[in-house]
């Protein structure tokens, strides 16, 4: 007979902690490697090429603590969110029209595909030529560069809805509002969240280009200043502001996904 009692029920605290540390370690490890490589390079290269990350850290703190500087970060964030919201609302409406009418679909699809082929920088030039107000120019650029992707993603989600489930809901004769609330919105939500995640990354890159030309504030404008001063630490610190923003919003979207899609079955065997 063994002296060791069998362990039944929940795993011991130590193994749970070890598992948590492993999970944290695996997600942090890539960042640690990049940081170490950069810091190692900073020992051998001039400051203007590879500044110490300690300098970059203090520049980040300066941006966070200085009201004027932080206002530039907030301005950029608001421009990204306004552009994405505008593109999502217009794209969602266009997708609904396209899914309801073949004629609208046939008319709009080629135009949106054409828009997809226009580089962000071209939209910047068009905006400068067509419009006066800086903020409107940036909003226009943000909307035009993310609109086709949002439209096609929402359209795909609407077309991908289960016909069986739609017929089942229809059999209860829902009003349009109820149909949207009980069926369409939950069915397309996963694709919409994915669309936001993808377009968030695109928008954070485009906003900088838009701000580089013509804006008098924002992360793009500040990056232009750092370039003129040849200040690599500053350029990195301002870039990191956008990276932090994207990471925070992606994290928030993941939290929403985890809460909204808890109904999904999870297979014990991965792909």
């Amino acid at each position, binding site marked *: 007979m063994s002296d060791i009692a069998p362990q039944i029920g929940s795993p011991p605290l130590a193994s749970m902690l070890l598992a948590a540390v492993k999970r944290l370690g695996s997600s942090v490890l890539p960042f640690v490697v990049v940081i170490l490589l950069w810091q190692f390079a900073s020992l051998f290269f001039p400051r203007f090429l590879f500044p110490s990350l300690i300098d970059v850290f203090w520049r980040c703190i300066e941006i966070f603590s200085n009201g004027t500087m932080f206002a530039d970060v907030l301005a950029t964030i608001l421009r990204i969110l306004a552009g994405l919201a505008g593109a999502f609302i217009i794209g969602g409406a266009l997708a609904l029209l396209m899914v309801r009418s073949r004629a609208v679909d046939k008319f709009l699809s080629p135009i949106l595909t054409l828009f997809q082929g226009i580089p962000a920088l071209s939209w910047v030039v068009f905006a400068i030529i067509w419009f006066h107000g800086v903020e409107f120019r940036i909003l226009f650029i943000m909307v035009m560069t993310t609109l086709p992707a949002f439209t096609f993603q929402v359209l795909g989600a609407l077309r991908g809805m289960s016909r*069986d489930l739609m017929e089942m809901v229809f*059999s*209860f*004769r829902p009003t349009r509002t*109820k149909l949207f609330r009980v*069926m369409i919105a*939950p069915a397309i939500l996963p694709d919409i969240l994915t669309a936001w995640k993808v377009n968030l990354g695109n928008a954070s890159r485009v906003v900088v280009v838009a701000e580089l030309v013509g804006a008098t504030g924002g992360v793009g404008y500040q990056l232009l200043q750092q370039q003129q001063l040849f200040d690599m630490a500053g350029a990195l610190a301002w870039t990191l502001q956008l990276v932090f923003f994207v990471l925070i919003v992606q994290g928030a979207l993941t939290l929403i996904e985890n809460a909204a899609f808890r*109904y*999904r*079955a999870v297979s014990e065997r991965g792909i």
Partner: protein
Amino acid sequence: MRDTVTTPIEAAIHLDNVSKVFGKAGTDAYRAVDGLNLDVRSGQMLALLGKTGCGKSTIFNMIAGLTEPTSGTVRVSGRDPFTDFDSFRGKMAIVFQNDRLLPWRTAIQNVELGLEMLEAPAAERRATAQLWLTKLGLGGHEDDYPHALSGGMRQRVSIARAFATNANILLCDEPFSALDESTAGRLRAEFVRLVKENGKTAVFITHSISEALEIGDRIVVLKRPAMIAYDVSFDGDTGKEERELIRSRIGDVLAA
């Protein structure tokens, strides 16, 4: 065993010379239903029996108002279910071949779906849904999502969903065909009991002769393209021998 005679006035469901053609006129046109006349009286349980592809589901969808007939008239409680679609809110419920539960809703939320369309107060919705889940032996599974339920349990949720609205007309499209025979048998018996107890008019599509005999008090056998090949009514007094005769006759019609 008797002939079925139902006047349109007393018919809950009335199909008059109904045809349905899919595709454009010409070579690729497919005639699924051809000049069908059918009346189902109020309180009747009609089993529509036929081989795969004979047009049963097309008839079903036309009665449900999900498909428009190419020609002819479909009336349910005197109204056109396709053009007067919204007027059937709460008056017609459907049990589909597969459970068609919304995966993002729990069992009880799925049962509440039809009541939500009827703007029933939340407390009333919850109480009714709970009652039907309990009646169908799903007490304790109210908050389970569909993926956590077995096939039989999911189909029971879908039956509860259909009964919860207290609709007078029930349409069922082979609801037990995807289940194992033992579960299907149990659910079938429960279903017949609930329909009888609640005085519903039911149209039950099936391709199984045994199921049709068990469920219906009238069987209509369809031949492609959805024409009535045999129509027979019976009741609880119909003896075993008579039922065997009906089974044999249906078998002959289907084989012909």
